[in-house]
């Protein structure tokens, strides 16, 4: 054990001679790990935003079989019936905490410059209960919209991602004009990419009846089942009931899958490239140390110390690279906000999230690459015919 340590340390001390070569491993793996973590942090961030939307004690009712609120519709006759279903909590005045919400697609511009893209942004018409039920929604600027007027409040991300969204500004879409009267925060979830107004105002402005969906506060987590049973039992309803959080979580699928494919392809290829590079470099390193290694073995040191020392060098360099890449990724990308298409074909803004588990994953990759890249050269070094190596001196 002591010999192994001694040889390994000796090896590290001589790295100075091979600094150029060693840098190749460090930088190469830094690039691989950096890119990987960067890409994974994109899906992490998207997931975080959506999975962080909604709670488990609120339920969302949509028409049966739809994938998103946009395609859902609850008729005006059905609405009052849904409100009186069992399992829904009531407020102090005995009124059900239920908000029939209307989803309207609007169009805003994204990106400054000569050709900004026209993007679709969700306008959500909420009932007063909808605000009461969502304590995470807080007004941070301006005031709430007044019913009867074309006023709306905008989520914080909406103000940052889209053009012209600021308190006092007017937005024009679908033939009507609206005034932004306030900005709200919603703990960084998907609602921050939306515009909110009063449900009745929306109905009148766009000639709609009924609602797209209904959000209800459950009496307790267990009431979900009660609600579901009541809905199933009644033939008048064809509705799906899920917790609000479950609904938003399911919205992440497409994007995460697509990014997942891209990430996998890039990651696999880059990892291969990194392994080839590491092998190449370590073979070189071993070659430059050939005489030294042969001398050690001629003196009587066994193969194991040699293997360990070479392997250790490769792994340490790889880990250094991994740490460098992870740090770079974190500094460059963490917190960067972008927006993309959500399931509703409307924009969802999210931030890249370089989480600790991603960093761990990146480091694991680098250890693996370093290990593979060092193993073959290490074994080779240990088995080199001594005489041949010494003769080359």
């Amino acid at each position, binding site marked *: 054990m002591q010999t192994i340590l001694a040889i390994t340390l000796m090896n590290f001390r001589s790295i100075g001679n091979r600094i150029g070569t060693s840098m190749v491993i460090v930088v190469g793996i830094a690039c691989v790990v950096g890119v990987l973590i960067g890409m994974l942090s*994109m899906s992490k961030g998207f997931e975080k935003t959506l999975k962080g939307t909604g709670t488990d004690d609120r339920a969302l009712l949509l028409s049966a079989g739809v994938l998103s609120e946009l395609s859902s519709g609850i008729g005006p006759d059905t609405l009052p019936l849904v409100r009186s279903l069992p399992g829904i909590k009531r407020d102090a005045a005995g009124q059900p905490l239920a908000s029939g919400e209307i989803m309207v697609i609007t169009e805003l511009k994204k990106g400054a410059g000569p050709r900004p893209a026209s993007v679709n942004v969700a306008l959500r018409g909420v009932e007063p209960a909808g605000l009461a039920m969502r304590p995470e929604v807080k007004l941070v600027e301006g005031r709430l919209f007044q019913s009867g007027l074309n006023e709306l409040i905008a989520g914080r991300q909406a103000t940052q991602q889209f053009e012209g969204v600021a308190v006092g500004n007017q937005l024009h879409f679908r033939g009507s004009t609206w005034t932004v009267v306030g900005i709200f925060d919603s703990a960084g979830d998907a609602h921050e990419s939306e515009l909110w107004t009063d449900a009745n105002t929306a109905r009148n402005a766009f000639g709609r009846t009924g609602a797209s969906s209904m959000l209800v506060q459950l009496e307790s987590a267990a009431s979900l089942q009660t609600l579901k049973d009541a809905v199933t039992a009644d033939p008048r309803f064809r509705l799906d009931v899920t917790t609000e959080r479950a609904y938003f979580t399911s919205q992440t699928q497409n994007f995460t899958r697509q990014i997942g494919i891209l990430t996998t392809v890039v990651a696999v290829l880059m990892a291969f490239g990194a392994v*080839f590079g590491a092998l190449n470099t370590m073979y070189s390193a071993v070659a430059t140390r050939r005489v030294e290694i042969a001398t050690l073995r001629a003196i009587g040191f066994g193969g194991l110390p040699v293997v360990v020392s070479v392997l250790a060098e490769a792994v340490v360099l790889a880990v250094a690279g991994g740490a460098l890449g992870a740090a770079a990724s974190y500094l460059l990308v963490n917190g960067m906000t972008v927006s993309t298409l959500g399931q509703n074909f409307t924009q969802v803004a999210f931030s890249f999230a370089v989480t600790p588990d991603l960093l761990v994953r990146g480091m694991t990759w680098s250890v693996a690459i370093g290990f593979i890249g060092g193993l073959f050269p290490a074994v080779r070094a240990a088995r080199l015919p001594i005489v041949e190596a010494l003769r080359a001196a």
Partner: protein
Amino acid sequence: MKFFGLVWAMLWRSRARTWLTLASLVTAFLLLGLIQAANSLFSGEQINLSAPILITQARVSFTSPLPMRLLPQVEAVPGVASVSHSQFFGGIYQDDPRNFFPQFAVNPERWVRTFPECVLPPDQEQAWRTTRTGAIIGPQLAQRFGWKVGDKVPLKSQIWPLKDGSRAWTFDIVGIFGSKVADSCARVGNMYLNYAYFDEARQFGNGGAGIIVVRIANPDDAEAVGRTIDAMFENSADETKTQTEKDFSLNFVRQLGNLKLILYSILGAVFFAILMLTGNTMLQAVQDRIPELAVLKTIGFTDAHVLGLVLSEALFLCVLGGLTGMLLSVATMSALANAPGIAFPPINANLQVWLFALGAMLLLSLAVGVWPALRAWRLSIVDALAGR
């Protein structure tokens, strides 16, 4: 050139090293090719859609159907050759979202008129028109699921429930259309349903045409006709936005976000890494061969000769690895396009991509070769022979 043999032999001085470096280069350029393909896909270059087609959608969102009564008005616009309409069906096949493919409810007769580049045998066209539940599919779709004429395809529409509330629709394949001229029909992965049946059977939205598809007589009129159409409906309840089909698709893609930035960042990182690796390899290679290069100089090879030999070696290495990687990426793309079960559009690596890759190879050769080449140029025969 007579020095080719020498450069080639020198390249293989250390077999393991050369193979590994080539492997890294191939990997890097394979990645380059794939990323370029993805990039061209997302920047709309791959959209093989001809200018004569315009899409008229509801101004705010293409998800809002336009009413049927707009059709004759659009038809009357000068420059319009024929008008069709299309409603996205949004069906899932066998409950698996991975089986996704686009389905559109269209009017058969209008469809045939508007897309003459997509050919349907007359008997199949007849069958489509007369069969209520009839649907036609493109050849790529037929290949993907192994469908033939006569097969029944059950689809669950995420958007449109039937009058009884269920979402389970069933359609009969009555025809498979093809391209008039190779690849002229870009809709090979789609299914087209009979609109009349669809409109009658659906629970709501009846009378909604979806988007309006306009074929213009002269591609140059695209902008003018588009503006005329939109002007017609301005300030009405059905404001429209008309753009070429290409722009329509592009706008959709642009909403996905700034993918170009991401893709190019990846590329940048990859190339930086490969530059370091190959550069180091070349340096090592030259370092090991100092005595041999010295011998060449004693024989009478000038400093310039030796510099040239090293640069050539770097060039061979990068071009060999690069071309192999690019060819592999092309092969991968075509394999993916033909793979059953995956909806992948055929992406052709165009001239621009190849030029970019070749440029990258040349630049790389120069970057990795210049330092070792100078080393070789500068080496002193006497010192090298003496082992210093």
